[in-house]
């Protein structure tokens, strides 16, 4: 079982990102869960979205998890939300930021000593450049594909394209470019 927790603000696309990841994962024959804690949240409110991925049917419906991956798609939440809550010794962090990894960790005491499992990528800038709006979910998926090694990039792009097939071609192309660029830039 692989468990993922997304930290986001309502409107940045974490719920769509979690569901999009679920769509692609399901094409590989695995079982998925994608859910979020939002309810009455308004645009801009901090929220968390979650994925579970398993080879077998997923029966656990609890919100509680010790995540394998923490994906932070809002730069400020890395500083203000408890992104390390319920972490494991091997939990990997992928954080969107314009800072260098060293600068980021200096500013977030909870990440001190975890340099080898903290990864950074500027999802906001990438989405502005490729999609034209600050929708950092798609680039985060590209970064996750790279760090997790769960898929080949081409396989992920092909199936993500299918999941987005109801959108105009321009939006699909923007998302594909965002995923590819984040895949190459995450470090």
């Amino acid at each position, binding site marked *: 079982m692989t468990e993922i927790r997304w930290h986001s603000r309502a409107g940045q696309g974490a719920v769509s990102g*979690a*569901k999009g990841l*679920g*769509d692609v994962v*399901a*094409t590989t024959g695995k*079982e*998925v*869960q*994608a*859910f*979020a804690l939002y*309810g*009455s949240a308004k645009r801009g409110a901090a929220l968390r979205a979650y994925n579970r991925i398993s080879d077998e*049917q*997923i*029966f*656990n*419906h*609890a*919100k*509680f998890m010790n995540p394998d991956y923490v994906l932070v798609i809002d730069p400020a939440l890395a500083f203000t939300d408890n992104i390390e809550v319920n972490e494991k010794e091997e939990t990997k962090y992928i954080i969107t930021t314009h800072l260098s990894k060293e600068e980021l960790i200096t500013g977030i005491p909870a990440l001190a000593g975890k340099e080898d499992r903290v990864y950074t990528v500027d999802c906001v800038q990438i989405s502005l450049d490729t999609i034209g709006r600050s929708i950092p979910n798609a680039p985060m998926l590209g970064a996750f594909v790279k760090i997790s090694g769960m898929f080949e990039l081409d396989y992920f792009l092909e199936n993500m394209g299918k999941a987005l097939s109801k959108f105009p071609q321009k939006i699909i192309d923007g998302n594909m470019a965002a995923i590819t660029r984040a895949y190459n830039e995450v470090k």
Partner: protein
Amino acid sequence: MAVKFDLNEREVWDGNYAASQALRQADVDVVVAYPITPSTPIVENYGSYVGNGYIDGEFVMVESEHAAMSGCIGASASGGRVSTATSSQGFALMAEVLYQASGMRLPIVLNVVNRALASPLNVRGDHADMYLGRDSGWIQLGAFNAQEAYDLALCAFKVAEDHAVRLPVMVHQDGFITSHTAQNVYPLTDEGAKAFVGEIVPVDDMLDFSRPVTYGAQTEEDWHFEHKAKQHKAIMDSRPVIDAVFAEFKELTGREYKRVESYNMEDADVAIVALGTTVETARVAAEELRAETGVKAGVVAIRCFRPFPYDEVREALKNTKCIAVTDRSSPGGAMGAFYNEVSAAMYTSQNRPLVTNFIYGLGGRDFSIEEAKRIYTEQQAHADAGHITTDIQQFSGLRGPKLGFFQTDRS
């Protein structure tokens, strides 16, 4: 002629989307709705299927849930296949009309996405609305995940419209935990679903002008009692029809449903008895605990809340030493209603297990694998001691001081 909807063999759907697809595939003629969180997407999606030509149906927007169920009654009495969805406050406002629907023996299918009742206002999942409907004369089926919300919605039409039943059916799913959680769902083909559900054959439909009928007549003490007794017998007699529909569904899909589901119960000493998604979380806990400590833990799950599966509950728990019955609804000054029903069934069995009551998960409070294991471990301690060593009713997952009521009288 409806436009073909593209479906994959494997989809990633949440419970709401799954239920709305079942309404599309069942060719529902009329949905009368007043949307409410968290069930909104069910009727919203049906409306979009109508608007986009995917279904030849009618979507009627009304001013309240009271009107929604009233409209469903009119459409159903006219002979159509009718469905809607609601939750919580909407369900409460519908309550008066629910009794009208069952009393008129109308085969309406209501998708209930379970949510807490105010006050305090809360949009998240608990079973307060489901409990509010338990004496309403509706058949109540419970889904534990999105796949089941889809499967049971299809089964519900077949049960409701069976001429031996002719009763409305609720299909329950947990608010957010099922309704807004996307999981793998394996849908039937449109043709397969259509063939399974079949065409509705109306009884005493009001649009048959050659044979005028009256719905909603008045009876006083001369006939009211006989009508209600007949209605009660009808819901009791729906049990074999439900079993037959589940058997036919298994033939078609391989997915097996029973009115009571048992997991790891063959040799279980301790059991959690539950409804909804909690069933599946407890299953994981039981298996992990067996591997970790050897405690023989199992789960008994109620799929069919009404008619209450009295015999099957006794059979499932016949060798169990200690049982925790979990109620996800505030009992308001009593033991949990579900606890009382399971206890009553066990009181008339040869096995007289220890039975405790946990109130949990109100307003969407999380129920974790660890908490289920703690409950099992506590039940094992009762079984070892030969009596209940804690309060009989406890609150699980409550913050602040422990809250519990009543102790075993050992004088």
